[in-house]
């Protein structure tokens, strides 16, 4: 899976997802659970102080990214690891493929990682003939279901309900029990256990790398990252180049914010910290460790007007609160990064050709900005995209552009405005019935497709006011 998950146009994806009642029910239910748990987890804290601190840590790292990346690489190498800086997705997949070839790897187990989805790693490894197995339960379900793309960055199979998951298990891994989540999970656990023991390489993502020690920190509720990093002889962690913290002190703060914001937990069941290769007296851990640091467009975001998006710690609180995501689901975004974070990030990493609609798939309601633990002004960044699309890229439809120019003229010139609003009700008269417009012309057409529009009043408010307050007012 690459970042782009669909060849369809935005409107086609939108229509088919709006018709998907299963998905919409699953998403609405999940949003409710996540929101309730998140509130319970943050309301008892002085959350605004935490947010300020989280923002400060992330901004500090981004402002000194070169320093911390250097420190991280020195410390990974000091503990016997190898560091590879991949400027592009291709460089990253090529490097990892080379390792797989060197090891003659037949089986690779993976812990959940969005960046490996972004660089389309699995399909490259599969082309080499490797069997690649996702061990995060959600990712595993999607992989079994003929590589259904993730619709959420934390809970990738959010769009499926338990009956759909049972069907996938029945068809693909000989499952015969009920739709009970416990039974489904137990079966997956049994199947996956065997894979950990026989894998040649383990691949993980990276929630936070710790520069001071060269460690990679992974947050899971299933313990799968623990097994992926402990059992195979070769281990590869892949990280987006911004995903690091200076020391364990900052990691502790951000992990607590991540788990609270993502699933409303103070901590997840497992926090795996991997530091270097297995040492002489240790019984588990890899004999060989590679850290692949992926740029893939991130350095062009750095230093620009969208830099704050790199503060993201991938908690998905914005997705879990977004009223648009609630109805359209993750697949409508056409990117593995969905919801508000995806609508900002996907056009930056993947370009406007594929993702120019995403910044408009928002009412700018600000709910995402309110819940972001590291205070990314998400709705402002969505607005910034619109400004870039219209004014710098010139990609706005001509009809809209003309309309907005007319708006600018009509509302900056007092005389044109007064005249325009005076004749408006006459112009609209043929479209008005019973004081309502039910089938309007021009831009009103799309409004009246779904709702009535009140008739323009013969007496404008300003005319009423003049009568009300005889003599009028200055200006």
């Amino acid at each position, binding site marked *: 899976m690459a970042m782009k998950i669909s060849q369809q146009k935005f409107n086609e994806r*939108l229509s088919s997802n*709006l018709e998907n009642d299963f998905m919409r029910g699953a998403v609405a239910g999940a949003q409710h659970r996540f929101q309730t748990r998140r509130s319970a987890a943050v309301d008892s804290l002085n959350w605004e102080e935490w947010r300020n601190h989280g923002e400060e840590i992330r901004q500090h790292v981004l402002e000194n990214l070169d320093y911390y990346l250097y420190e991280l690489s020195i410390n990974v190498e000091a503990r016997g690891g190898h560091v590879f800086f991949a400027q592009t997705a291709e460089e990253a997949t090529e490097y990892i493929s080379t390792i797989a070839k060197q090891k003659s790897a037949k089986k690779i187990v993976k812990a959940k990682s969005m960046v490996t989805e972004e660089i389309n790693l699995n399909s490259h490894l599969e082309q080499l003939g490797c069997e690649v197995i996702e061990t995060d339960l959600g990712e595993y379900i999607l992989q079994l279901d003929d590589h259904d793309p993730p619709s959420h960055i934390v809970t990738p199979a959010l769009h499926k309900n338990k009956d759909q998951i049972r069907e996938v298990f029945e068809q693909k891994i000989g499952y015969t029990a009920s739709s009970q989540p416990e039974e489904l999970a137990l079966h997956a656990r049994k199947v996956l256990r065997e894979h950990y023991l026989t894998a040649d390489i383990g691949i993980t993502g990276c929630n936070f790398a710790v520069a001071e020690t060269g460690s990679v920190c992974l947050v899971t509720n299933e313990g799968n990252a623990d097994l992926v990093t402990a059992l195979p002889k070769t281990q590869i962690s892949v990280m987006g180049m911004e995903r690091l913290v200076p020391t364990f002190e900052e990691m502790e703060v951000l992990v607590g914010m991540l788990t609270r914001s993502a699933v409303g937990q103070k901590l997840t069941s497992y926090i795996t910290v991997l530091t270097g290769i297995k040492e002489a007296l240790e019984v588990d851990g890899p004999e060989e460790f590679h850290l692949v640091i992926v740029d893939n467009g991130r350095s062009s975001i750095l230093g620009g007007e969208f830099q704050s998006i790199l503060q993201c710690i991938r908690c998905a609180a914005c997705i879990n609160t977004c*009223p*648009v995501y*609630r*109805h*359209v689901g993750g697949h409508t975004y056409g990117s593995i990064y969905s919801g508000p974070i995806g609508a900002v990030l996907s056009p930056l990493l993947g370009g406007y050709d594929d993702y120019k609609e995403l910044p*408009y*798939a*928002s*009412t*700018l*309601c*600000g*709910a995402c*900005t*309110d819940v972001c633990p590291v205070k990314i002004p998400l709705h402002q960044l969505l*607005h910034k*995209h*619109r*400004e870039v699309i*219209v*004014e710098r890229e010139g990609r*706005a439809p001509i009809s*809209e552009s003309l309309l*907005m*120019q007319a*708006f*600018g003229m*009509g*509302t*900056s*010139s*007092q005389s044109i*405005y*007064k005249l325009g*609003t005076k004749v408006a009700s006459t112009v609209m008269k043929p479209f008005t019935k019973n004081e309502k417009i039910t089938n309007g012309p021009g*831009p009103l057409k*799309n*409004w009246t*497709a*779904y*709702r*009535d*529009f*009140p008739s*323009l*009043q013969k*007496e*404008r*408010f*300003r005319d*009423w*006011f003049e009568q*009300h*307050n005889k003599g*009028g*007012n*200055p*200006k």
Partner: protein
Amino acid sequence: MNVSLFATCLVDMVQSNIGKNTVELLERLGCTVSFPKGQTCCGQPAYNSGYVKASKETMKNTIQVFEDAEVIVCPSGSCAYMLKEYVHIFKDEPLWHEKAQRIADKTYELTQFIVDVLKIENVGAKLNGTATYHPSCHMTRLLKVQKAPLTLLQHVEGLELLEMPLKENCCGFGGTFSIKMGQISEQMVDEKIASAEQIAVHYLIGADAGCLMNIGGRIDRKNIDIKTMHIAEILNSR
């Protein structure tokens, strides 16, 4: 107190009733209301769609029109917020930035003005029925006016206030979003209306003409028996 009313373009052209009730209400509360005639729109429709340059001319007009006002009161949380946002929008134009700051400092949304400036919590309104208040997004999250409208509504004699499920969710208006993304907007407004239906209220009250036009327009289309009312209309009921 001398109040300069920023009525908003929607109220001026489409929802004049909101303007009339706002004026009558403020006058009843002892204010002298003026309507600076040069006013047009806060610029938000173009600005939010990405047409920043075109909208800046509109904003400059608004700034000039209200420069000498004592206080500016606006019966819309979203437009009141926009006037405050001018400060950031003009951050690189010192002359306009300074003017924008002066405008921002004296701009109030209607209920915010009544509660925080006039220090009135009971405006003496009466209306029988059950109602729910839709906390519109910009007013609640960006302008951060959350309590004032509820405080005022709680004192309306005969009005029983009920909370609807998912009340914080956007109604799907979003300015040009409602036109550009009509399909999504439809789903959002339907869920909002379903929430109000679930608690079976007579009135759905809001403090933004845009949201009310969206919700009300959909209610009319579907022939649902709930009346959308602007908070100024409620507070001016006697």
